[in-house]
């Protein structure tokens, strides 16, 4: 399992890796879901397998507290030009990772609100992809 204090987040563009200096959290939404359905007469106890979400991309949302101006500017450019990137989240100790490959940046990477509390000092880096790869490594006990 990932722990945010052991992890790096960032993205790869044109073969070059860029890492966020201060990352608060990452949230994933995987779109594909399996369901069981059956007739309304309710006699089928096995059910029929049904699937949804095949047309919807997976989403990763990085809450970035701070990054260099160069990376921020590059993100804005990539968003405007709709360029493809690989967004990664990786465990520094083990090398375990989740990578959203051939992703596009969904939201304009801008600070969404300005206020006094901690949560306002960040912007959302949200990407969508149909090609998510991962490397799973056994946790040490």
């Amino acid at each position, binding site marked *: 399992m990932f722990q945010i204090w052991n992890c*790096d987040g960032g993205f790869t563009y044109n073969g070059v890796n860029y890492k966020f200096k201060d990352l608060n959290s990452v949230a994933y939404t995987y779109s594909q879901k399996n369901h069981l359905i059956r007739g309304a007469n309710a006699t089928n106890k096995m059910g029929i397998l049904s699937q949804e979400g095949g047309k919807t991309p997976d989403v990763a949302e990085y809450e970035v507290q701070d990054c260099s101006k160069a990376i921020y500017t590059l993100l804005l450019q990539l968003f405007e030009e709709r360029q493809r990137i690989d967004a990664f989240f990786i465990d520094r100790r083990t*090398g375990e*990772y989740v990578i959203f490959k051939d992703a596009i940046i969904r939201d304009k990477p801008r600070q969404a609100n300005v206020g006094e509390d901690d949560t306002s000092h960040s912007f959302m880096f949200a990407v969508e992809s149909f090609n998510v790869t991962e490397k799973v490594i056994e946790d040490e006990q």
Partner: protein
Amino acid sequence: MKDVLLEYVMKVDAYAPTPSASTAYIRKVLCVVKPLPEGATGTITECTTKSEIQALTTANCHVLLEAGLPSVYVLPMNDLNLADILEATNKKFFTILVDGAFTNEELNELDDGDFAGVIGWSVENREQAKNWGYGNNNVGFYDLDVNGSQNMYYAFGKMLSANNWKNQQYIEMPFGSGISSINQAELMFEDSISFVLTSEEYKNRLALFASNRRAIVAPYVYEELTLKLQSKALQYISLNQPNYTESEASLLEDALQGVVDGYVEQGILTHGKVVVSLTDEQFVVQASINIPEPKALWRIRATMKQGEI
């Protein structure tokens, strides 16, 4: 020389990414042929036209051009002592085609040094074609002597000039090889000899094209894949200047896996897995790359039951 004031005001560190390695040589062919009477030997010449080839030899390697290759290297020789010539040349190629004018005895004397590519030879003798085709990356091509190796040249020309790696199953061929019965064809197939089958309806068709009992594209795909993995590793390391950490090893692994995945997406490989891990040594990471052999589908053994129950 840059202006000192400009350099003083603004010093710029120039930076250029490492380009991909060239894989063009994988599709280049050297034809080893008998020279013209009184003709020179031992020199490799790049030819782009039939007339340039005919100025060196009467062999039919111009068929490679007609099949689609933009150029061929031609080496007129009286024997097959090639090691010194191959070592000295600056021309790069991955295929050597030995013309059928060289006999089995001459071929047994072949000295190719440390050449690791594909060597094809055309001969009108099933046993000799089989023996040659059962070594290294060799291709034993059965063809009538009267055809002057043209079928071999055509098959290689088609494969190497194609946009992607295809095994050229049943393409139309320029000449028949005298094989027109199922029994003859079965014997050729059993021995994994490359040959042309002639049928009444479909005329002359390439009925098997293999390198040492494997798909003909296998040695080419391995060579290209190896080169692209090496090139990707160089590009990755020079662009990202990685530290010696688990996360960097994982990102390098993902970059290399992307190269293998490209071949899987094209259907050339069924799967492939790259694993990069740290070691106790300085500077060096350990990588394991598991790639299945590219295979080709040539024949179907079917069972059909007639009637209804």
